[in-house]
């Protein structure tokens, strides 16, 4: 691309050269698909959209954290397990121990951030590849979740001293998170997702730390020689990803009304797909939260459209795989 072109006004070529507009085109295509295969008008019902957003929210929260890490040139495979770990811890503390949400929520976020930060620290200081370090945390956190829960789902059926089970009420904080607002038209988890995206966006776009993440992902050595403390900056990205995985874990537990140590298996891969479909390249240094939002909606709606048209899950998975490849092919940067 020449400087003259960047300065020019609207043109189709310019639109296509911009990753945001390419991601938007993909989303629009999915919407067109939805309008054509509307399953006897189901696609035009408000409730369908509310549910699509609700189902995409947990993944979207993970994808926001994943975006931070991927922009720094890394990857975080641990988010699905951290989600399960926090879901278990949240349920234990809220349902079984009856702790106040004012204590439980900060502890859960801290737990997620610590898990992410540990993986990040191993990457940053020992030079272990992010893939390996977060893979290790993925396995470890899953094990910890199973240990805490004793391998069982942590539900409202609480075992008594006499060995019998007795059902307790779902805690208020669970109900709050799983609530709907605006006359039942918007799920609370979608609001939480929007908040997470907003915070991640502000940090990336307006904070020094965000700029330094881009610099590290774009050229780590140049960033280091420009005075960026590479290790801490990276560690914070993984800690933030862990904290966002914790938020996703809270939402997951509230929606299921239990802490399932088996929850979130494979979620990290969906989150990565959402980031990549949005147009943030795995090579780092580019991309952003806005793109990830588009990617989250694209996958979320695609899944919904296929399911309301009663496409069997087996075919859905194969189609999604094909679409990921197609999307990434169009997102690939053209040689300038």
């Amino acid at each position: 691309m020449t400087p003259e072109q960047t300065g020019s006004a609207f043109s189709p070529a310019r639109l296509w050269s911009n990753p945001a507009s390419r991601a938007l085109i993909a989303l629009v295509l999915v919407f067109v698909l939805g309008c054509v295969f509307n399953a006897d008008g189901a696609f035009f019902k408000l409730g369908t959209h509310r549910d699509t957003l609700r189902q995409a929210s947990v993944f979207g929260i993970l994808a926001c954290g994943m975006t931070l890490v991927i922009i720094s040139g890394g990857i975080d495979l641990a988010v699905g397990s951290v989600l399960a770990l926090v879901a278990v811890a949240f349920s234990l503390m809220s349902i079984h121990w009856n702790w106040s949400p004012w204590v439980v929520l900060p502890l859960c976020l801290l737990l997620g951030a610590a898990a992410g930060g540990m993986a990040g620290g191993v990457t940053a200081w020992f030079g272990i590849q992010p893939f390996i370090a977060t893979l290790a945390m993925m396995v470890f956190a899953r094990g910890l979740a199973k240990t805490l829960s004793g391998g069982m789902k942590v539900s409202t059926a609480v075992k008594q001293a006499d060995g019998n089970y007795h059902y307790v009420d779902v805690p208020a904080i669970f109900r709050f998170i799983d609530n709907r607002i605006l006359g039942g038209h918007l799920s609370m988890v979608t609001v939480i997702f929007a908040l997470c995206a907003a915070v991640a966006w502000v940090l990336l776009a307006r904070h020094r730390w965000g700029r330094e993440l881009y610099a590290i992902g774009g050229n780590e050595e140049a960033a280091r020689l420009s005075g960026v403390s590479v290790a801490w900056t990276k560690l914070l990205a993984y800690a933030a990803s862990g904290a966002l995985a914790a938020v996703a874990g809270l939402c997951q537990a509230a929606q299921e009304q239990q802490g399932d140590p088996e929850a979130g298996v494979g979620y990290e891969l969906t989150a990565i797909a959402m980031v990549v479909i949005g147009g943030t390249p795995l090579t780092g240094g580019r991309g952003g939260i806005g793109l990830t939002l588009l990617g989250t909606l694209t996958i979320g709606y695609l899944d919904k459209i296929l399911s309301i048209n009663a496409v069997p899950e087996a075919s859905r998975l194969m189609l999604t795989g094909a679409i990921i490849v197609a999307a990434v092919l169009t997102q690939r940067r053209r040689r300038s």
Partner: protein
Amino acid sequence: MTLLAADSLRSPLVRLRGIGKRFGPVQVLRGVDLDIFGGEVLVLAGENGAGKSTLIKILGGVHTDFDGTIEIDGQVVRPRSPLEAAALGVAIIFQELSLVPTLTVADNIFLGRPLTRRGFVDDAGQRAAARRLLDQLGLDIDVDQRVEDLSIAQQQLTEVAKALARDARVIVMDEPTSALNAPEVEKLFGLIADLKARGCGIVYITHKMEEIERIADRIAVLRDGEHVGAAPAAELPPAKLVNWMVGREVEHQFPRHAGQPGAERLRLDGFSVWRNGRGNRPTVEGVSFSVHAGEILGVGGLQGSGASDLFGGLFGAYGAQVGGQAWLDSRPLAIASPRRAIDQGLAWLTNDRKATGLVLPLSIIANATLADLPRLSTAGWRRPPLEIAAAREQGATLALRAASLDMEVGLLSGGNQQKVALAKWLQTRPRLLLLDEPTRGIDIGAKREIYQLMNDLTARGLAILLITSELPELLALSDRLVVLHRGRLTAEFSRAEATPEKVLAAAMGRA
């Protein structure tokens, strides 16, 4: 370009005619003629950037887009890959070796053309053949050892064996002794003598005068991408060789206006840098000099001199792997990290803007403010208006030409990229500027602007340490000069004393 009379009785193994090559706007080779004969060592001499590496990469099939012709045994050929060049009998041993570290010596020797039996690799046969080959060469290397477990010298010798296994008749060695100790060098020279006796043609690139005197049969000299001449080594004593390598007057292009130097800015006393860790030989050893405010001190040296490592060491790029004393404005310089160096007023323009200078996917603004973000933000929150103002101010100072300051730096021309890298460092308000190859790969217009900038900066009291591999540029811009050879300071010159011949001789270890 006249070719000095080569031995007309023999016909050369390789005949290069009119070789030209350009990288974008920069013409790096122009009409180069070269003959390589069997049974002799041809030393290819020239300053850094004279075009030696480009020339051998053309011969070796690395660069395929060039002008002119290559003849091997009288046949015009055009190798399109290193593999094709190898099939033609040309092997190039680069400084970065092309062995696979995790494979054994035998596997490496036969890599790409294995001995096979019924479609499977004949492991026993390969090992026996490799052992025979190494024995013939008098090399004591275990064929079953992994290459990564060998010393650098053994790796290099393995590379030679690999070349011979492919019937190479022309073997090019690019600074093969830079990582070797004295006994290893002897071993290599012994092998070279052996190869000569077998009728191989050796092309040897080196910056060390003592090596040239020892092994050269003939010497060809490149300067600024042109062939200056070739002569039997006996007819080219060191003084004359140096004269061939320099001999270029471009002084009028450099309008250096030296002012009166001010107070002492930086002082080094026995300064050493262990770039590769304390256990290894320091790449800078016991260097002492000082530079004053308003002064440009040139640091001369050829490849492997350690000049860039001196900059990196001062800047804290290798952490605290330094020894000796350093004072900045009469206070001890704390060397720990780049951040500490920047905070104390140091700036280091590295010699490779794409690899270590710029973040190519980011905008001009993001790059120009990267090193100064702590000052440009409040409690961690960036202040875009301040950043835009800073980038605009530095851009104006440097006459940066770009459609928009939001443009990705990767899309700019080389000269403008260099200006962005400079903008980043000027934005930190440095007191001592370390410039490593500030004009590498940029056009003449941008070069002049950078020269003018250096005048302006020193007039404002900045001190500059300058590395440039272009000797005329070094001589014309430096108020004083120090010269390094293999990490040690070999000479110091005032502007009046310095001549190209003296500086080059000192850089080659002949002070």
